């Protein structure tokens, strides 16, 4: 058996994650998802497929949703990254997190981080979405437990609360 004699090529990446400036080294072939999970120990984003089909790894990159499994880590250079760990404000849950809890919008919970990030992106953009708009905005996130009913209702409820708060 060989030793790890040959060092792999690693790139220095500098970006902000959930408001904090971070620096890390990443193999060139490493996905941003793996870097977040393995280098920064932010394991909220999950890998459900690795091919951008399930949305469990959804994060915000400069305010837009992305499947972090489809981005190479070095592509995050200079970006503002937000993960599920960053959507609460201090010790106050984001209204989406609260309505997901109250509305039982999670069962196993493994898709939940991706849904919360996608739903936040939707409500940031469109504070009063129709049910159809919510369903299409979340169509890139797979949930196998809930049938989406309670997720959609929780997003609707969070939208109401957010509109109330901003009035």
């Amino acid at each position: 058996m060989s030793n790890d004699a040959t060092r792999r090529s690693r790139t220095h990446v500098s970006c902000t994650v959930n408001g904090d400036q971070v620096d890390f080294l990443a193999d060139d072939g490493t996905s941003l998802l793996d870097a977040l999970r393995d280098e920064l120990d932010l394991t909220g984003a999950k890998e459900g497929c690795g091919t951008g089909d399930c949305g469990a790894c959804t994060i915000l990159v400069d305010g837009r949703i992305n499947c972090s499994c489809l981005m190479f880590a070095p592509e995050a250079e200079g970006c503002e990254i937000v993960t599920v760990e960053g959507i609460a404000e201090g010790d106050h849950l984001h209204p989406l997190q609260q309505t997901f809890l109250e509305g039982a919008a999670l069962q196993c919970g493994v898709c939940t981080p991706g849904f919360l990030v996608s739903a936040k992106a939707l409500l940031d953009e469109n504070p009063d979405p129709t049910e159809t708009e919510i369903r299409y905005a979340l169509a890139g996130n797979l949930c196998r437990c809930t049938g989406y009913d309670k997720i959609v209702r929780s997003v609707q409820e969070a939208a109401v609360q957010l509109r109330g708060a901003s009035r």
Partner: protein
Amino acid sequence: MTVTENRPDYKWVGTRPIRHDGYDKVVGKARFAADRNSPGQLHGAFLRSPHGHARILSVDTSAAEAMSGVKAVVTGADFPDLPIGHPERDTAVNLMARDVAMYVGHVVAAVAASTRAEAEAAAAAIEVEYELLPVVLSLDESIADGAPLANADNRTAFSGSDDPSNLATVTPLERGDVDAAFEAADVVVEREFDTAWVHQGYIEPHACVVDVGADGKAEVWASSQGHFRVRSQAAAVLGWDTARIKVIPAEIGGGFGGKTTIYLEPVAARLSEKSGRPVKIVMTRDEVLRATGPAPASKSRIRIAATNDGELTAIDGWIGYAVGCTGDMAGFVGAMSVASYKFPNLKMEFVGALTNTPRSAAYRAPSAPQAAFAIESVIDEIAQALDTDPIELRLKNAVVEGDLTSMGGPHPRIGFVECLEAIRDSEHYQSPVPDGAARGIGTGFWFNIGEQSSATVNLNEDGTATVITGSPDIGGSRASMALMAAEELGLDVHRITPVVADTESVGFTDVTEGSRATFATGMAVVNACRDLVGELKARAATIRGVEVDAVAWVDGAAVVDGHDPLPLADITAKAKSTGGPLTVTASLNAGGAGPSFAVHCCDVSVDEETGRVEVLRYTTAQDAGTAIHPSYVEGQMQGGTAQGIGWALNEEYVYADDGTMLNASFLDYRVPVASDLPMIETIIVEVPNPAHPYGVRGVGETGIVPPMGTIANAVSRASGVRLTSLPMSPPKVLAALDDR
């Protein structure tokens, strides 16, 4: 909406508190299987068979072992050869082929290396010499006369024969005089049906981290439906004492039956043992679809006789399941699922047959959905032939308490009629069918199981409590356990911490299957709490200086005539002076799991140009016995329904002739997304199960049984042509429309 029969007035049971593990899951703190890393860990990867059926002549790992970063390589020779008939032989053979690879994707060798990329590269460098064997891909090929064997080790279960066979099980059921009934019938409908292989589609791929120390002890971090089963299966496959293995339950990212068995842990253990390092293995989605346990494809022929006044007098038929590469109980259990209608005359045969495809695993009410699709379709056609309401026809023939199940034995108290009435009386069913759409009705049944559970309840110094069980929380069961404990102890549910403990920290608990967690583990919690209340009364008697008989437990306090109530926290504060810590453990093998019935109603439209079916409205009514946490009961109903809609309309394994799966990704194996579905309206029916202290019936599985028949009935009514093949994907629907 809830329809309730004679329910006592509970304070906590039936309320909807925020689940105790919810916070961690919305902030990203919850640790699932792949979320753990151990210092110094290696990464595992597999070499999988590219052939559907092949003898393994040689495996040369020398090149792989010499590669960068590689620390250990294992093959089938690294595991004991369990004899034919050993209960875990199929598990062992499936997670690492020994002499024969039995499907494309069957593991032949595994590598642990410093990085996953190195492990994958080394696995690809392992050289295997194969001798190709005939591939048996379909049910028809498997049961054909003179068919080659899909697995030469298989024997037909309970046949008494020691000859190799492709048949896993053959189960005939018979009662009454079917021939005479068909002769006397006014209406006879006969149809043939087929359904495709489908996958549970849990979003979390299988993963584990295993650390075997130099002392031979293994710590296993794994996602499963039952960590005690992980332990017993791993011990059997490795040939180890169970005491060497500690399994710590990670949060589980969906299972639906698919995580009731193991694929990774013994391999990671051997790699860890050989390398002296912790080993992490995480499946890719491709591996999950290709090589874990999907649900059997099926074919069936169903003939039902009826009289003009709507009595279903006889059923006659055959249902076959393609079960994959090892023996399976689908054919046996499927037989039990024909239990919804009285059918005085019945003659059925159920067959499970082996194929060179992945070993099938349980998927929510395993084998019942395929049977219900066929039977509910034929019953709908009889309703059409008799020009009668499909619910009234079912009400006329629905089983009630005392009616015989198909496998023998009378039904206990059940709520099928109540579910039919709930749908009949629903706003949905009473509303007009939308223009251009049609409405379908279907039903389903699952009997549920009890099995063994343990629970420990600890009262803390300040009167709070910890409820410790060994049932992984798949969809809110921690909250259910806490609610039952709250009701028993008279304690606020938020002052109770429900915990899922590892295999060394709680008594043995069977795997979470058969919708048993809230039923059986809940019963263990209730029993422990009742013993604890007895102890609390004894302590209160000591404090008050009275006989224990003089103490009553009322709403969380000990009540003695002539004294102020003594709250629980006042007793726990004096635990030290009254006999020590207040802790009770209860264990049981629960009998009397109550069957749960469901009735579904949906409206669909069919696009005549594209063949696309759109589900416009969907309502489900299901008997939960008693809904401990109604939100999570609704969630089970909705989730099962959504999976059933996928099974009905989109999902299928597509195989090439050589047994290669052609659509092993979530892009091509298309599960329903949010924009495919409407809201799924729920009606919880509560006909309490007399065998449970709170009347609980298992609710997890039944929801997936009715949707295929329900949707097929709606599509058939919308299109005027009977759809008999799943999935009802656009090409198939278009072909059916063309054949009108």
